[in-house]
């Protein structure tokens, strides 16, 4: 997801400003010297300055041609596949406590493999077996309390 340096620079200037704004309510030390706010403010100022330099460089090199082509984005396989990963992890977070690890994990792996053109019967078998092995390793051997959900194993 490449966007122009001008925009990235502007993003860092904004981030710096927001961080600085976030420190405004921080208390000073007893003797009135800056305490908790000193370091984040320094980071914020430097981040905004570096961002400004990057933005200005990008602007001068007029790299707008490199800017993201929003309309073609949905046709980029890499980008859509990346969205699938995102959706997969989010679905895992939302579902795992209700459905349990064995079902949710296998589901996420299956959908991703299917999206990456593994034929579905093969993907299904690999997803179920691999996920069960992960469960065995983490839940049974390392004793990580992976959510059980609907299945009790």
């Amino acid at each position, binding site marked *: 997801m490449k966007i122009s340096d001008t925009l990235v620079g502007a993003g860092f200037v904004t981030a710096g400003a927001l961080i600085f704004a976030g420190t405004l309510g921080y208390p000073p030390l007893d003797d009135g010297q800056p305490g*908790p706010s000193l370091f984040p403010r320094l980071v914020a100022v430097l*981040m905004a300055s570096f961002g400004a330099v990057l933005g200005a460089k990008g602007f001068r090199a007029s790299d707008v041609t490199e800017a993201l082509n929003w309309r073609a984005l949905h046709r980029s396989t890499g980008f859509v596949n990346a969205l699938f990963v995102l959706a997969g992890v*989010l679905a895992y977070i939302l579902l795992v406590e209700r459905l349990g690890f064995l079902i949710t994990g296998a589901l996420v792996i299956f959908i991703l493999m299917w999206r990456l*053109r593994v034929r579905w019967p093969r993907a299904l078998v690999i997803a179920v077996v691999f996920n069960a092995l992960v469960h065995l390793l983490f839940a049974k051997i390392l004793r990580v309390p992976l959510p059980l959900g609907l299945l009790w194993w």
Partner: protein
Amino acid sequence: MDHFLGALALFGSVKLWLVIVVCSIYGLFVGAVPGLTATMAAALLVPFTFFMDPLSALVAIVTMSAMAIFAGDIPAALVRIPGTPSSAAYTNDSYELTKQGKAELVLGVDLVTSAIGGLMGAVILMLAAPFLAEVALRFTSFEYFWLAALGLSATVMIASESPVKGGLALLVGLFFSTVGVDITLGYPRFTFGSTELLNGVDFIPAMIGLFGVSEVLRNMAGAHLRFRAAAVKAEGIFRGLAETLWRYKVNMGRAGLIGVFIGILPGAGADIAAWIAYAVSRRFSKEPEQYGKGAIEPIVDAGTANNSCLAADWVPALVFGIPGDSITAIVIGILFMKGLRPGPMIFEQQPELVYAVYVSFIIANILMIPFGFLAIKASGIMLKVPRNILMPAILMFCIVGSFAINNSLFDVGLMLAMGILGYFFEANGIPVAPIVLGMVLGPILEQNFMVSMIKTDWDLTQFVTRPGAAILGVLTILIWFVPLYPLLLRRPGGAPASP
């Protein structure tokens, strides 16, 4: 010497050898598969080290990383894709030689120079670390402040292609390090009312996100494609090797030292060592015009340097608690997780542990010859592993690994956010490694600065009047001028060499 024998005795355990063998295979596999880096392998190993004793955890990381940095050379030679960034410098030369039918010679040189470089690094680590630890015992908060500043400066000025982008990545890491309860007043910063963030951004899920999830995201584009790898006969890799290595013995010595120097410098890792050794090699070569077109000489240089750097990276990590690269940054995270504080005191309190790190580097680099030989033999199979099955599997390891540290889904969300950040940064040419160094060095920098200020009642002159602090301060400032050095080195009247 007693400690050394004591450490050797620790290696009598069967369990430890099991860790060594498993981690060697893991490292060789991750290194040989393009797109998976040694840092990612280290991040994914962390959840497992959580359940190991400190000794096994350190040995696991040492063997895995040494093997991975060598194995990265295999796809560089066979498919023209570096397996890890540390092999990038000489990928073109390796592949050109393979096209000329010399794949066996390239892989033989890769393997043996990796082992020799690794052993050189291990020896320097054994000699330099205890000596520096003695010096470090006299350090106060002023010196530690400058050391952290030196590490940060090296990351930005030496290890980044664009200092502005490297600096921005570093600042993001420093910002993450400020999240949570502050050191001076215990005031909660940037927690947005969340209890999970009171202890700060958890290092492990952040690592797994930045180096694991972001790699998965990046590999999603062409995951269904297969590599077409050149065939190689592993039995032929030692033919004519001794002669080649003897011809370039000076190169090996020089490159080993370059790697060690870059390694001891906090903040710059094996990939930088390889690039610098490559450049130095070209400068002193009798046939610089061959570089990039299939010369064996730079492969000797850079192949030695990246492995010698890997061991030397542990010097600042163990002695000062300041990471030499992103892998040792993870090691420092593991040590803290185990309740151990890296720094000069660890040499007095846990000498066996430190010596065990030396011994495991020596063992790993000796084992590298037979294991590496087998990896080259199996390279055909490893490069055929379907990545459209591998990537979803790695993602699941990332998810479960992040969860396992605190048994918290919050950490899985944190991992995802960091993964997106890492992916977005890489796509825009912003390096990810400085974020990690910022996260590790941020607290060291802030704590030592605030402690120094409060104990001297805001007397800034102490940062330059103490001799140790002054030396480190001057070194730090010298690093800021690194981009100007090529201008100073340029011969008067002569144009700089064309790229």
